[in-house]
């Protein structure tokens, strides 16, 4: 039985793993976990540096054309000390909806104590965003904003859109990366 397993592993191309021993196999697994962890920690670091829970977002619709097109990658930050101005492009979340929206600030009202309420509209939309807001909500507040657009990469987000539209593609890419790391150990 042990010989059969060895022959099968040699045939599949994982014969090297059989000769490694428990410690080295564990190290290979940890290397794979660390590849994922490094990407995760870089993401968390970006969250801390930019002060926003989503430092990078992908434009999913054409409501901001010609400024941004579907598939563009946006870099955000959300420094609280910087005031929101008319004309700025903000990313905000509506109560009850998971997907954030990227639109431009159209109008701002500011109270004496500094609290602001603002209205947004997509450049490519004919009306403002009041129809998108929650029931009874006519203005957005500072707490609804998850970030302000500070830069963009055209078309860089098309891979994300493809993986969202076809989840099997995402699992296939992850499995391929994992197999590649295990096969090319230590080098």
């Amino acid at each position, binding site marked *: 039985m042990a010989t059969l397993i060895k022959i099968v592993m040699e045939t599949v191309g994982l014969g090297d793993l059989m*000769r490694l021993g428990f*410690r080295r196999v564990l190290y290979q697994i*940890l290397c794979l976990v660390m590849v994922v962890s490094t990407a995760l920690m870089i993401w968390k670091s970006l969250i801390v540096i930019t002060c926003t829970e989503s430092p990078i977002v992908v434009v999913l619709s054409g409501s901001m054309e010609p400024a941004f097109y579907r598939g563009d990658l946006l870099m955000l930050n959300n420094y609280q000390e910087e005031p929101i101005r008319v004309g700025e492009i903000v990313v905000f979340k509506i109560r009850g909806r998971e997907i954030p929206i990227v639109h431009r600030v159209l109008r701002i009202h500011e109270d004496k104590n500094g609290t602001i309420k603002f209205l947004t509209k997509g450049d490519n939309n004919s009306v403002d965003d009041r129809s998108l807001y929650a029931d009874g909500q006519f203005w957005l507040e500072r707490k609804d904003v998850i970030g302000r657009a500070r830069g963009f990469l055209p078309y860089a987000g098309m891979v994300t859109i493809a993986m969202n539209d076809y989840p099997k593609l995402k699992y296939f890419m992850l499995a391929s990366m994992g197999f590649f790391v295990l096969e090319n150990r230590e080098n």
Partner: protein
Amino acid sequence: MSRSLDDDVSRIIKTNKWNQIRVKTSIDDAIRTVVIDRIGLKESYKFLDVRLYICIIACVVAATATAFDYLNPFPASKMVLIGCCSLYFISVAVLTWFMTYVEKQIFLNAVGKDIAGINPDNHWEFSSNMDKYDKSYKLIIVKRRHGSSSCNFERSLTRSVEDWIDDNGLLLIDEIENVIRGCIDELLISSKKE
């Protein structure tokens, strides 16, 4: 020594002879097989254990940051994220430093116990190198006496990979064993003369 079924399988290690990294790794594995299984030295996992501990620490830190951020979304998790991210990248830097400057190209640490039990243990280090696009495999064997950092004996040799791998990509374990045994015997004799 009688050959077991494992030895027969190891005699037919096959590698992709056109991939330099696979060739080097396969020869390293073959030397490990010879030293541990045939010559009888005991493998020392000190370097691998250090790497494992650092990797485990890094993974635990990453998992902690992820779990805390999931339970307390940003900005409540800001300070924990700062601490965990810093600790994670410090761990990765320490691991890289350890692998580059301490472990270098050593692929095997082994310990040889004195049969009579009188003399201290001998520590063996096997390191290898292959330059890019070069078919020469350079092996360095260092013998250290336990507890003595100054009492080292070193033997290096360079072989073409075609000496140890045939046209079909099969490793010639017997040839490798002959060379390694010769080197180890030379080092033992040199150390006794000193």
